[in-house]
């Protein structure tokens, strides 16, 4: 009887968050599912039910198609970059004799900075008449249209986001490094294992749980890229940086096609869940194959 009362009390204490979740997550999700089959324009009091035409239109839209592929392009650039950078930061900081916390916080600060601000700074740096480009032109005769070229535009955006997240992921990896038993390294040293071998055969395997976490997180980030793209490239040039979120924003708030935007959002969600699921399974298989799990 007391257990039953405790359960009720538990549910009661949990109810604020449950209500919050229902109101702000489940409600909008259901509403979005409904909207995806309408032609509502965010303002009009009336709208029509249009069946699956929004989805059909989305599949045919070159902008939506580009969103699909651009996400994976960002993934291929961003994930290796941020993983290598965060691992490097974690290893360097871990090796410091003093002030580890100070340096970690320093590397973490980009994560707290506004994407808008950092994007605008980069935009200024890459301007045609910026010191960087003026130097390249005058000294080497190199003329690069950084944000107007598909390849470099993609790279720039990926670099900014990698810079932003590297410190954050380094925190996770640092905690993973801290959890590795020092005696393992001591035993390895006795056996004459080199530093490089120690990294690949001890550090990396034992760090797998933390790396797994940062990899999953970084793959997820690529499905939510918006701010930097919005500020720097607007999805261009030629849709080269047109992400899911950028396309959803354009359709919903520029073209006022809320129903169509909802359909795209649902497609984005489906692609995201499937992709993350597959990636997660691949990572787990990789870990098992190497005996790390």
């Amino acid at each position, binding site marked *: 009887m007391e257990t039953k*009362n405790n359960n009720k*009390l538990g549910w*009661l*204490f949990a109810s*604020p968050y449950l209500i919050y979740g229902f109101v702000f997550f489940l409600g909008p999700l259901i509403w979005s599912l409904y909207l995806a089959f309408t032609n509502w*324009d*965010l*303002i*009009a*009091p009336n709208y029509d039910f249009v069946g699956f035409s929004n989805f059909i239109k989305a599949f045919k839209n070159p902008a939506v198609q580009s969103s699909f592929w651009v996400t994976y392009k960002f993934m291929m650039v961003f994930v290796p970059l941020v993983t290598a950078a965060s691992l490097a930061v974690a290893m360097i900081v871990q090796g410091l004799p003093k002030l580890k916390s100070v340096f970690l916080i320093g590397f973490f600060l980009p994560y707290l900075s506004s994407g808008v601000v950092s994007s605008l700074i980069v*935009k*200024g740096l*890459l*301007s*045609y*008449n*910026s010191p960087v480009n003026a130097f390249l032109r005058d000294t080497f005769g190199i003329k690069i*249209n*950084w*944000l*107007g070229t598909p390849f470099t535009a993609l790279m720039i955006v990926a670099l900014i986001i990698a810079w932003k997240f590297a410190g954050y992921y380094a925190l996770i990896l640092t905690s993973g490094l801290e959890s590795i038993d020092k005696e393992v390294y001591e035993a390895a040293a006795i056996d004459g294992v080199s530093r490089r071998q120690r990294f690949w055969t001890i550090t990396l395997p034992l760090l797998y749980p933390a790396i797994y976490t940062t990899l999953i997180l970084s793959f997820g980030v690529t499905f939510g890229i918006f701010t930097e793209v919005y500020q720097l490239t*607007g*999805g*261009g*040039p*030629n849709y080269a940086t047109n992400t899911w979120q950028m396309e959803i924003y354009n359709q919903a*708030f*520029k*073209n*006022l096609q809320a129903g169509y935007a909802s359909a795209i959002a649902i497609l984005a969600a489906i692609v995201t869940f499937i992709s993350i699921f597959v990636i997660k399974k691949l990572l787990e298989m990789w870990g098992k194959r190497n005996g790390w799990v």
Partner: protein
Amino acid sequence: MKKKLAMLLIFTVAISMLAACGSKSTDNKGTAEGVTAIEFWTANNPPQQAYWESLAKEYETVNPKIKINVSPMKETPSSEANIQSAIAGGSAPTLSENISRGFAAQLTNSKALVPLNTMAGWDDIVAGRNMTNTIESWKFSDDNQYVLPISSNAMLFGWRLDILKELGYNEPPKTYSEMLDVAKKLKVKYPDKYVWAKADLADPAAWKRWFDFFMLYNAASDGNKFIEGGKFVADDKAGIATLGLMDNLRKEKSLLAENITDPFETGVGIFTDIGPWTLNYWAEKFPELKYNETYTLAAPPVPDDVKVDHPKTFADTKGIVIYASAPKEKQEAAMEFMKWVYSDAKHDLQWFEKTNMPPARDDLSTNDVFKAFLDENPALKKYAEAVPYAVPPMDNAKFNELQTFIGQEAVNPVVRGQIDPTTGWNNMKKAIEEALK
């Protein structure tokens, strides 16, 4: 103890709910004691806000029965987005300014705006402000007027006069061939300078076409409409010629469509679109730029075979709308306020002085009220003279999507040299016609 905790939690939740309910009651203070209060959202910039606040206060002394609550629109992520969410959330103001005709078309499509010509006092406003001719081009395809024009910024092109003189020209080019001649001579003398340096040429964002493509197209077509009543009615020849100019400039290596900062001001580019609001910015940031010394203003160039005395241009027009969601008495109060504002030309002079944006009226360059101000500001006089030749933006609810196609399918690839003008035009036309179905 458990019961007490449970009761405390319930009490907390109840208080929160009551607080939420209580906040709604403030919305019902629209009319009290015979005074009608209207909400007026202004543009989010100090000069316009100050202008409307001062007029509102003055009007309230004339008509104490109407109270005007002036507040600036939020512009994050954009003023349009805030208006949309306000309408969708049921908290739209009575009226707002700074509404472009394109955005108004979107709102009209959703039945969010009042057709102003159906309101009492509309004819008085038009007559009192002397804008019978100006207002004609503002009419929507359903023959209603949804936007009361405030300003008509006839966009002009600026030319670096100091550099033109070095090339042997005393006045800016008027035709495409003259412009290309300038490009050739410029490249010989200054290999690192461009006729047209503008990052936006490579940007597909819809609104940017107003300040490159449409300025030129309106001139080349002598004001031929682009979209009318849901149909593509553009002048093919003029459109292809417009793209052709961009393509030819690119071929002469005189067009730079990259991310660049202040190209005209620094002399990297010698040709650019300029709105009257730029003059204040220059006065602060680039005081060395002097009208008719460093730079001059001109109407858009036209193709060689287009013979017109005054080329048309794009009008960056903004106006006032009244929202259909507002109560009838508030709508009527808003019209009364507008009638009072525009019954006196001095109010428009005040606007002109504060914002540099030409009031949308037929007699701007002939009315004595404005003479002294225009004589003191010759650059603004140039804009005032161009007002009658300014064409407002298209009034299609899908203008954003349609204008994006102009960039994506035509302007952007042409300036990059990826396709020829005719192909670009046809691709754009196909995309637009498909979207209009």
